């Protein structure tokens, strides 16, 4: 049972979150310029990393925010969680 630190709401039980899979898959700016293989790569091919992995989670039962989680997929240890494009925002969670 993971304990995930929502960058806004703090540590919450896994059941409050939903999973969004691999993070940082940038949607191509001009999809029509891609051939079928390139498009398939964006669409389907995944790193599926065994080890340190950057992924997306949504605090779906809470503040509905999507955020980034760096997690070890073997030990399930979460190294860090952070907001998307959130470098500027850094206020701490009260508690």
């Amino acid at each position: 049972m993971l304990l995930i630190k929502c960058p806004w709401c703090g540590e919450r039980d896994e059941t409050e979150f939903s999973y969004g899979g691999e993070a940082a898959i940038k949607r191509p700016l001009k999809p029509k310029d891609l051939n079928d293989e390139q498009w398939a790569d964006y669409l389907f091919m995944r790193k599926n990393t065994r080890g340190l992995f950057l992924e997306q989670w949504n605090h779906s039962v809470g503040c509905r925010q999507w955020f980034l989680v760096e997690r070890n997929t073997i030990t399930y240890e979460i190294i860090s969680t952070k907001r998307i494009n959130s470098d500027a925002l850094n206020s701490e969670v009260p508690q």
Partner: protein
Amino acid sequence: MLNEIKKYALDGFINEKESSVISPQGLEINIRAEINFLNIRGSINDSDFIEHAEAVFQQTLPLDFNTFSVGEHHIYWLAPDEWLVVTDHDLKPIVQKISPKIDLYVTNQTGGYTQLILQGNSVRSLLSKGCTLDISEKKFLIGQCAQTGLGKAGILLALTDSSPTFNIIVRRSFAEYVGLWLKQCGNEFGVNFTHKH
């Protein structure tokens, strides 16, 4: 006149025959549907928005995550760009004060929520049966709120006083489930439901 024709999610939930004697360990649950809810959206990076919101509602907008402010209304933090106003006041005159020049967006949610007020010694024990949040005295303070799960429904939970009194705000279509959940799980403590009009 309009008040009489309104129907709330938990109307008819209380079966008078069932109302039980409550032990000192028990708790009192007050169904408070007849209030108004308004959702606010805007950017916290936009000082005009914050200033305007506070002017419109005559109250501080809680910018600290998972807190609420109390004044004429309760204003709950829901998300970095979202708040919920819970109020006895009519919404219309408030909404009319909103300037179209400011990026402050509201949606009326009055029909969408129901509020339950839980009081008694066993409230924490009862909620902890289905809520994974740490709501012990030292961890969940007065003035704090959290959107979390209760059983299989999402709720907004807030602690308003040390008696303790917890507010649960739940979406209309989940209110019956939450009511039944509280009734069933509260059985071991004894629960008394009341309506406040």
